[in-house]
Structure formats: structure tokens, C-alpha cells
């Protein structure tokens, strides 16, 4: 889309019935690095690509725990994402306090969507520039939702957002029908493979991605680097063997030794 005279205010409609500011906000989501979510009947996996501003800095945290049973992955303006995560955490805690039971995921995404909609109808505000993949487990099962800056939300079996997410989406489209019955391990493997698609050529290392899992009897938590590297090793060897086998295997063996201590210490110590 090109610049036009109807895109200055979020409260200005175009003659064709579009709110350009809202659409531009959705473009911001595509600027962020990739985030992927998949769900089975009993588990939800959220994964993201660790992108650092420069070689000198640490990477930004893109996946947040909202509660034991809800996690969120963001893409776009991370500052907006951080603020919305804090809102979700507060909603979850208040619900637990009042009703002594975990907040159903569907209710949370509606509140998030309503909050986003407010920003599309006030002249003194701007839309949130972040897309949220909300994954959670409640009485009605496992769910994965995508919340747009526009205030819309959709439920997905699997989805990818951010830059080069189309490659991941293509991969997921091929496989999504089997996800419902997938085991936890297969789901994690598929998430990491989807991440690999977004890297488009770069070798996949456990330091490049963050993976989180939640499920029945399993509160939300991040997988440590060793576990991720183990999963990577199960499929990374296959393409390597076609090249110079021994060399590649040595590389893969050296990689876990390097990343052993990295983990969460790489992430900037933000408030969340």
C-alpha cells in the first residue's frame, strides 16, 4: 500500500472503507522476528527466533508466561508486547483471586481484543503494534489464538507471525491435520522445524530459538538449551550426512558444549 491522504489519523476512514493506520500497525507485526505456535489436544508449544539488535547486545524476550496455564509469544513492537503481557498477567491473577480458578483462555483473548479495539477508535491513541500468539489450556482443552492490532482474534491449530513467517506457515499447512493427535515430543519437534523454515539457510542452533511448552499436568515453562539441542540433533544430522558427514557431526557435537551455559542469561533483564 502507498501513502495517501486518509492515513494520517486512526479515526479517518478511507473512501474504500479501510482504516489505514490499523493496517499499518499490522505491517509492524511483520517487521518483528518470527514467532510460532502449535497445539495438540493436550499441549501447546510456543517458539520464537532469538534476534539480537547487534552482536554486542542480548536478544529480546518474545515469549512470556502469563500464568501456569497460559503463555504468549509476541511479534512486532516488543515494548507494546511487554505492556500487554503485564495486562494479561494482571487479569489472570485477578480472575484467580475472585473465582479461585484459572482464567479460561477464550475470556482472556476477548479482553485483549477489546483493549486493542479501543486504540483503533480514539484520536489520541495509536493501535498496539504487536501481534500476540496466546496459547493456553483450560477446561475446554488446549487453545491457540492470534490477536491482531486491529482488535480481531482467531483461533488456530498452528500459526506463525513475524518476518519470514510465510515459510513456517507453509510447513505448518502441510502438517497441521496431524497436530491434534501429536505427542508432546512431536509437537516440539514440529515447532523447531517450523522455526528452521524461517531461518532460510542459516544453520539451526539451540541459541537461535526459544521454545516453551504447556499442557495437561505441565505448567508453562521454557525448555532449556540442552533439550532443544537434543531435538535439533535428531533431524539436523539427516541433511548433514549428505555433505561431509564426519565434519558436520563434529560441529553438531561442539554446538551443545558452547551453548550449555547460555540459556536465559542471554536475555535482557527486563521487568518481565
Amino acid at each position, binding site marked *: 500500500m502507498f501513502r495517501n491522504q486518509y492515513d494520517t489519523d486512526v479515526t479517518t476512514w478511507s473512501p474504500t472503507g479501510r482504516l489505514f493506520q490499523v493496517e499499518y500497525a499490522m505491517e509492524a507485526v511483520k517487521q518483528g522476528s518470527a514467532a510460532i505456535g502449535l497445539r495438540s489436544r493436550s499441549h501447546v508449544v510456543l517458539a520464537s527466533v532469538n534476534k539480537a539488535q547487534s552482536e554486542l547486545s542480548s536478544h529480546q524476550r518474545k515469549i512470556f508466561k502469563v500464568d501456569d496455564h497460559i503463555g504468549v509469544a509476541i511479534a512486532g513492537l516488543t515494548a507494546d508486547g511487554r505492556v500487554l503481557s503485564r495486562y494479561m498477567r*494482571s487479569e489472570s*491473577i485477578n480472575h484467580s*483471586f475472585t473465582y479461585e480458578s484459572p482464567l479460561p483462555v477464550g475470556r482472556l483473548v476477548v479482553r485483549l481484543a477489546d483493549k486493542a479495539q479501543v486504540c483503533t477508535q480514539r484520536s489520541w491513541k495509536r493501535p498496539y503494534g504487536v501481534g500476540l500468539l496466546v496459547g493456553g489450556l483450560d477446561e475446554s482443552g488446549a487453545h491457540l489464538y492470534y490477536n491482531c492490532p486491529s482488535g480481531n482474534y482467531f483461533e488456530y491449530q498452528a500459526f506463525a507471525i513475524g518476518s519470514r513467517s510465510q515459510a513456517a506457515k507453509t510447513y505448518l499447512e502441510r502438517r497441521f491435520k496431524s497436530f491434534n493427535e501429536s505427542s508432546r515430543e512431536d509437537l516440539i519437534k514440529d515447532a523447531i522445524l517450523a522455526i528452521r523454515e524461517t531461518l532460510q539457510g542459516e544453520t539451526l542452533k539451540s541459541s537461535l530459538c526459544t521454545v516453551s511448552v504447556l499442557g495437561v499436568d505441565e505448567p508453562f515453562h521454557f525448555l532449556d538449551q540442552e533439550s532443544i539441542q537434543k531435538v535439533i540433533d535428531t533431524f539436523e544430522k539427516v541433511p548433514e550426512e549428505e555433505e561431509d558427514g564426519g565434519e558436520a557431526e563434529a560441529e553438531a557435537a561442539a554446538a551443545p558444549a558452547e551453548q550449555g551455559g547460555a540459556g536465559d542469561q542471554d536475555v535482557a533483564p527486563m*521487568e518481565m
Partner: protein
Amino acid sequence: MTKQHANWSPYDNNGGTCVAIAGSDYCVIAADTRMSTGYSILSRDYSKIHNCKADKAVLSSSGFQADVKALQKVLKSRHLVYQHQHNKQMSCPAMAQLLSNTLYFKRFFPYYAFNVLGGLDEEGKGCVFTYDAVGSYEKVGYSAQGSGSTLIMPFLDNQLKSPSPLLLPAQDAITPLSEPEAVDLVKTVFASATERDIYTGDKLEIMILKADGIRTEVMELRKTLSECWQHTLSIVLIRISTLGSLCYLELCLKFSCVVNRFSFSYL
């Protein structure tokens, strides 16, 4: 006609007693399980202990249990917020300060809760914090709160020899007792308090916190006001009824003989 005064109170006292003792590497928190109102018992199995899940901090509160429940919920939510912000659990001293602030927040409509917070501090040593209803708190080596506290506290003072906080250099308030000795002391102290305090009894719930985890013990306490006397009285009554009226006469005679002997000696 005298003026009618308001007779509704937002508070009620559900009774009960809470005790905590700090050791060099453990902490014992105990409370009875009786919940009462006035002279009636509401429950014989109500727990006054709340595990804050904050890196070994356990809160035990007596007083008005509705306020206690509300206080526990507030602390739980505040702890979750802390975990989100700091990416770690609250330490026991941090929880102690939070509890104090939470109580003072309601300075002009207090939580009717008499709290004892027990746990392990950052060095792994036992610590006990004792509170009043509006949040004034102090780190101590041991404490008792609730209806039986006046019976228990002097005994703990005697046994645990806590040095005066006015002494210099400042001495540790931690007891040198071992963990089994401390648990035994707690059981003894509750058994005695149950004898004379009507609001304490039924069961005793003990939580022992150590670096490797939390252990819970439950001990039975006296359930009624006069369990012992009822027992002996029932035996005497049975004896009398089985032996029949002859024995009763015999008894009377024997008694009168004794009386006679006595009166003879006086004469």
C-alpha cells in the same frame, strides 16, 4: 429506657493457637485445627496454616478466619506479581515485609488476624516473624499467637532462653535445639494449652521446613473440656451400679466409720 447500642460487629473470633520455632537449619510452624465461635465449635479440622510457596515461607494465623483467608489470598496474588517481575520466588524476609505492609494497608479497618510467619532465610537459617493485627512485626526465635498464646509464651520463654534484644553484641535468637526436640516441645506445649484453653484442641498440624523440603505431621489433641474426668467418673459409676445397692450401703457404713473415727479423735 437506655439507648440501644449497635450490636453488630464485622469481626468474630474463631479462636485457635499458632506457634513457630526457628532452628539453625529448620523452622517448625504449628497450629491447632479447632475453629470455634462463641462457645460453639464450627470445625474440628480447619487448617490455619498457609504455605506461601515463597521459597520456604509458611504463614500461620489465628483470629477471624474470614479475614485470615482474605489475607492469604492477597498474599498469594502479590507473590505471583513478584514472581512475574523478578523471575524468582520471594524470600522469607521479603514475604515478612510484604505481610507487614499488607496489614498496615488496612490500618483503619484491620484484618483481625494474629500472624506468625515461619521460614528459612537467605542463608538457610530458620526465622520466625511475629505480628500484631496492623502489621507491627519483629524477627524472633519463637512465637505464639492466638487464644492459647498467654499459656504457651511464658513456657517457651522458659525453655528457649531467648536473650534480651537489648543485649550487646546482638545475639542470635535461633534456638540451639535440634529439630526433633523442637517438634517435641511444640507437641508438649499444645497438649498443655489444650488442657486449659477451650478454644484450642482437636488436632495439631505441624509443618517442619528444612532446606530439602516441607514435612507435615498431625497429632491428636483433647477434643472435649473434661475428657479425663468423664473417663474416671464413668468407671466409678459402672462399679457402683454393678455391685448394686449392697455395696452402696457398705460404702456408706465405711464412710460413717471413718467419720466416726475422726470425730472420736477430736473428742
